[in-house]
């Protein structure tokens, strides 16, 4: 790690080919490893082990690459810059831009209130602000990697696309509803004369450095969840009969999507924590749309975040916010169930 810190650019030149080589040989390596263990071919245990030793390094490799790239991209977008870019945009264009910026701007739901106030203070319309607040947690890089790794890039892209559509339309709808009166009055009375901080623009070296920090931060935190998740997946892969959950959460159960969202909204977990559950549901025959709706409602809407937002929003607006987003997620769930 010290070497990487000292030579950020050089280390990329070395590590990237290494990454590609590792990724390209994963299947052979996993097969060889299974062969070495001497497990009998075709047995349940063998298949579970094969699944595990192939999926764990694959998802970890993908995660490392994506988090690294996202870390670099995020160094270009501070909340201050995002706010500046959103100033003076018309309603619909503002919603689109805010949703896109929500993906790339570093955001943690614990800073939702200072961010909200910062946006309102700068005169950014409420609907545009909400587009950002919806997209930022919901379109999550870990979820992207997981969908990409387990279902292919088309599914990951579809997830990003539908997340964007929800954020844009929900924000636009909230903007049209004229909900300004449901913002706590004190928010509009804030006039701070503290100058804030002037940020020096980082050089490219520093940006690569932030890519590495993101990897050690996020991958360092997420890997145990991934192990558990893929372990659960491997167990199910080998042992549980397929379509075990099909009756409950499969396509044929039309009510499964809204129920998944209803259960998911009050639950709160980061994307990493939800991985084992989604993995297990899917492997047992739950349909992708239902599982995805569940995941989006858990990571995109959360009780703690709404409680935090209650400090700046009156109750009706909290309900409108949760309601509009939940409705959007339900639509996406049905859409995925129809497509897949």
């Amino acid at each position, binding site marked *: 790690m010290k070497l990487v810190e000292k030579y950020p650019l050089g280390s990329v030149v070395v590590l990237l080919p290494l990454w590609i080589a590792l990724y390209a040989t994963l299947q052979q390596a996993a097969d060889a490893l299974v062969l070495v263990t001497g497990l009998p071919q075709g047995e349940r245990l063998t298949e579970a082990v094969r699944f595990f030793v192939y999926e764990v390094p694959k998802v970890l490799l993908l995660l490392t690459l994506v988090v690294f790239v996202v870390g670099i991209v995020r160094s270009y977008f501070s909340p201050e810059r995002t706010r500046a870019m959103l100033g003076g945009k018309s309603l619909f264009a503002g919603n689109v831009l805010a949703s896109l910026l929500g993906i790339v701007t570093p955001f943690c739901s*614990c*800073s939702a209130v*200072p*961010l909200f106030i*910062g946006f309102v203070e700068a005169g950014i319309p409420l609907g545009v602000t909400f587009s950002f607040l919806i997209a930022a947690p919901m379109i999550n890089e870990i979820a992207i990697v997981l969908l990409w790794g387990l279902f292919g890039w088309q599914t990951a892209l579809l997830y990003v696309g539908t997340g964007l559509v929800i954020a844009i339309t929900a924000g636009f709808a909230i903007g049209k509803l004229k909900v300004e009166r449901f913002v706590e009055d004190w928010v509009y009375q804030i006039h701070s004369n503290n100058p804030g*901080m002037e940020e020096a623009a980082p050089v490219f070296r520093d940006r690569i450095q932030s890519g590495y920090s993101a990897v050690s931060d996020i991958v360092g935190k997420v890997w145990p969840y991934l192990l558990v998740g893929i372990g659960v997946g491997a167990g199910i892969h080998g042992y549980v009969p397929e379509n075990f959950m099909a009756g409950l959460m499969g396509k044929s159960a039309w009510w499964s999507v809204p129920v998944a969202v209803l259960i998911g909204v009050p639950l709160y977990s980061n994307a990493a924590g939800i991985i084992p559950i989604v993995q297990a549901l899917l492997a047992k025959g739950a349909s992708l749309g239902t599982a995805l709706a569940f995941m989006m409602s858990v990571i995109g809407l959360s009780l703690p975040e709404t409680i935090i937002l209650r*400090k700046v929003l009156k109750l009706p607006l909290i309900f409108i916010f949760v309601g509009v987003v939940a409705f959007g997620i339900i639509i996406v769930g049905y859409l995925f169930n129809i497509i897949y």
Partner: protein
Amino acid sequence: MNVKILGAGCSKCKALEQKVRQLDELHQLHLEIEKITDLNEIISYRIMATPGLVINGKLRSVGTVPKDAQLLQWLREEDS
């Protein structure tokens, strides 16, 4: 020297507080460390992400946990 850590209970805020306390102990800096969780006070520094780090009234970082070397440099700048 007064050090304020602005943030209401996010994981990075705790990490930053812990780091500053460790540095304080390790290098005998005799810092006066305050954890600010009051929303209005946090907002008065015009930050849009937490944690915020304020050293002797000067806002030094927002939304990140800076590296030890960087923190020490800021603290030494204020000291001299």
